């Protein structure tokens, strides 16, 4: 019993820091509609800077000054980031901001290693609160009581801010309809900057508060961002009280889950999120989004079929790829296989997010299921490669059918978060189900059949299947089914009014996309000869997103271009540069700011028209 109380208090303490970070994320999303992936990075930065301040300023003031100072410093950095990067891309298609903040995360991860080194850093204890006090016979750290108090205090402070100041009222108004706020004479720019700064301040304060409690290290950002995403979504996006309740719920779940269900402790949080989202699609306290008002003047460009020139170029490209093993060495052949596989992966993601309008943060799940499908068949049934390639993707298809049924019940960011939850569930199962999947050790020895063991031979299998997959995806996009999918994306109500079963169409689209990703995953498993839980990690999912967005979401060729560019770049960078994340992240940010419509989109919008010469003013339409 006493132990349970202590465990409960522990849960509350982590709930407080989670809430600080989550409330910041929630406020930022509410107003700017940015899913700030870099929020975890700012949290981490808060912890690092607090560490430095607390260890350089003499105690006892050092520590207590370090907390607010580091939060202020990081908030200032956040303001600069908002003004220099985000401000330029608010008008860009949704999710571009996500890409930019992902780039910033990559940069921060390398920067902290450059500045503070890769070792874990242990911060000083809080002067005056070093000890522990007995609570029902158990010693409980005094400092943690302060942390517990911080949660409700910040909640109260935010409530007063939002209900007792004009700024707060403007923020609440902008959360509902920011265009209207601008049309009433409010300068959105400064509202966005101030909101972003406040959100980052809270994240950094959450990080700084942690230094006496846990070691500061350079993976803190991803560790917290996933939990915080879950909390924000469970609580209801943009709802601060919801974030508080969800933080307590998730933190207590973690605290007790590890005692009660040690075997599935990692899955627990995501299961709860999945259940909440299916029962209450807008989170505990969230309100149904008033059908995200497409800001006036934003139009989705229709996807276009290939012209004769593009067809010829594609044909030449395939011919060149077919000839590649004749001239290239094994390294280039292997790299090209990887590029082909990821082109298929990115195209399958594009099928659901670009064509289907369902943005996935967890597409790696289906890639990984394809890989594990083949690997498990090899491990337990010893099936030959030919059969493995055929059957492996079926596990991905099955997973996509199962998860898709839930996922198509939601839309927008909530849908994206549910895909993330399912991906994390798959990852956790594979990570924790050691007897079957080998957990962290993965499954080894998944090699191609003897006749295909030469990479140059296996290359042709990959080439044929990937090109076939890409052609098939293209055909799906321009088939009647593809038009139905796009109709459901563009207007749910109108699609339903002409007799389309929206959920069914989207469900099939999701399943198809999962199956194609699974083909990629299976091929990847045989290419590497092994599979590890990493293939399902968030990093893989985000890689897919980056590829699609980088290439251009409004074109069919975009994801392929994006996949090749991004993958080639990251393969090259990891082998050549020590701080490759810094450069890659910087590049992503620059690309996003310079080409908000993606590489292929930029080509289509800016370069191609000039090549075709002016075609007049476009068509006439009625408003």
């Amino acid at each position, binding site marked *: 019993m006493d132990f349970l109380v202590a465990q409960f208090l522990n849960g509350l303490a982590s709930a407080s820091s989670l809430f600080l970070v989550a409330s910041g994320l929630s406020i930022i999303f509410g107003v700017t509609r940015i899913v700030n992936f870099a929020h975890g990075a700012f949290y981490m930065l808060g912890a690092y800077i607090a560490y430095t301040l607390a260890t350089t300023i003499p105690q006892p003031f050092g520590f207590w000054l370090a907390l607010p100072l580091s939060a202020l410093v990081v908030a200032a950095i956040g303001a600069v980031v908002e003004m220099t990067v985000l401000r330029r891309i608010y008008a860009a298609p949704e999710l571009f901001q996500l890409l930019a903040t992902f780039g910033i995360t990559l940069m921060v991860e390398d920067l902290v290693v450059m500045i503070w080194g890769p070792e874990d850093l242990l911060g000083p204890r809080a002067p005056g609160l070093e000890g522990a006090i007995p609570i029902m016979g158990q010693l409980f750290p005094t400092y943690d009581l302060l942390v517990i108090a911080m949660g409700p205090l910040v909640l109260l402070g935010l409530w007063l801010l939002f209900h007792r100041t004009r700024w707060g009222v403007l923020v*609440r108004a902008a959360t*509902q*309809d920011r265009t209207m706020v601008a049309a009433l004479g409010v300068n959105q720019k400064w509202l966005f900057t101030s909101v972003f700064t406040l959100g980052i301040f809270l994240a950094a304060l959450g990080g700084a508060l942690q230094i006496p409690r846990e070691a500061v290290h350079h993976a803190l950002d991803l560790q917290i961002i996933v939990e915080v995403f879950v909390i924000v979504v469970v609580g209801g996006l943009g709802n601060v009280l919801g974030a508080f309740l969800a933080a307590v719920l998730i933190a207590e779940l973690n605290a007790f889950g590890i005692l009660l269900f040690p075997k599935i402790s990692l899955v627990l949080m995501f299961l709860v999120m999945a259940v909440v989202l299916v029962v209450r699609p807008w989170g505990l306290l969230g*309100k149904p989004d008033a059908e995200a008002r497409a800001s006036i*003047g934003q139009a989705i*460009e229709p996807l276009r079929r290939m012209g004769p020139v593009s067809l010829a170029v594609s044909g030449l490209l395939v011919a060149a790829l077919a000839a590649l093993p004749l001239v290239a060495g094994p390294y280039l052949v292997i790299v090209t296989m990887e590029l082909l596989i990821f082109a298929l992966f990115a195209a399958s993601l594009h099928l659901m997010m670009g064509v289907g309008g369902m943005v996935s943060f967890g597409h790696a799940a289906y890639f990984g299921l394809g890989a594990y499908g083949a690997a498990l068949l090899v491990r337990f049934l010893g099936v030959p490669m030919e059969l493995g390639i055929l059957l492996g993707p079926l596990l991905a298809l099955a997973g996509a059918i199962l998860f898709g049924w839930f996922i198509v019940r939601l839309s927008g960011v909530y849908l994206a978060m549910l895909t993330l939850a399912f991906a994390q569930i798959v990852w956790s199962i594979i990570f924790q189900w050691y007897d079957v999947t080998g957990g962290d050790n993965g499954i080894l020895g998944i090699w191609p059949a003897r006749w295909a063991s030469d990479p140059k031979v296996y290359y042709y299998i990959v080439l044929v299947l990937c090109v076939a997959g890409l052609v098939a995806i293209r055909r799906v996009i321009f088939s009647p089914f593809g038009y139905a999918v796009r109709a459901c994306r563009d207007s749910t109500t109108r699609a339903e009014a002409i007799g389309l079963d929206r959920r069914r169409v989207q469900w099939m689209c999701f399943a198809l996309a999962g199956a194609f990703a699974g083909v990629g995953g299976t091929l990847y498993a045989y290419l590497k000869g092994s599979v590890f839980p990493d293939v399902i990690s968030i990093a893989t999912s985000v890689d897919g997103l980056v590829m699609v967005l980088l290439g251009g979401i409004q074109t069919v060729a975009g994801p392929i271009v994006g996949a090749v560019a991004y993958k080639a770049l990251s393969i090259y960078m990891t082998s050549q540069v020590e701080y490759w994340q810094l450069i890659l992240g910087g590049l992503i940010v620059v690309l996003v700011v310079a080409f908000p419509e993606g590489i292929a989109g930029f080509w289509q919008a800016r370069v191609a028209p000039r090549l075709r010469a002016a075609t007049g003013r476009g068509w006439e*339409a009625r*408003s």
Partner: protein
Amino acid sequence: MMLEVRDLNAWYGRAHILFDVTLGVERGTVVALLGRNGAGKTTTFASLIGLVPSVTGAVTFDGEPIQGRPAHEIVRRGLGYVPEDRRIFTGLTVEENLMVGAQPPRPGVPHWTPEMLYELFPNLAELRKRQGGHMSGGEQQMLTIARTLMGNPSLVLLDEPSEGLAPRIVEQMAQALIEMKRQGLTLILSEQNLHFARLISDRATIIEGGRVRFAGTFADLDANPEISAQHLAV
């Protein structure tokens, strides 16, 4: 001319919506912008207020060009905008909705306070603490106008203020607009309801298919019944 619009063209993506729209309004007068659904009335207003990204043409407000300026700057010069679909902030109370619209006083135009607006729209007075989402359509429409007036505009663009209102409320709305005019405000009113427009307006401009088809007085319009038959009849 208080507001002068010349050769306004607007696009959504590659779709061309407005074609060389030209219109103007004299200080202290009311112009009705008439047209059917989809004629381009809302796009015209949205373009004037800076909410449509691809626009060409010249817009002069109070003698200064405003085309290409961001929405908040245009509004702060005294050009108020009342959108058609009552975009009130449903989670905010009536008082808070008014607070969002508040701007500093401007010389030469009425300086509105919440109290004055509660007099203009007596229905709102009893609802100060009511959440916007818990109000009737007519009350919401009044709040939308009151909220815009909090910005102390000299000219107000009203997008179909009578749309979807009960006849009794339409009557109150007309009274309120006439009072606004009496206070010296200049108004442009988009309408499908010719009768309502006639009650308030001095001149009419008819728009159809994104082009201006008629501009003149209501007397001119009545003298040429074929114009309304062609462009307004449903």
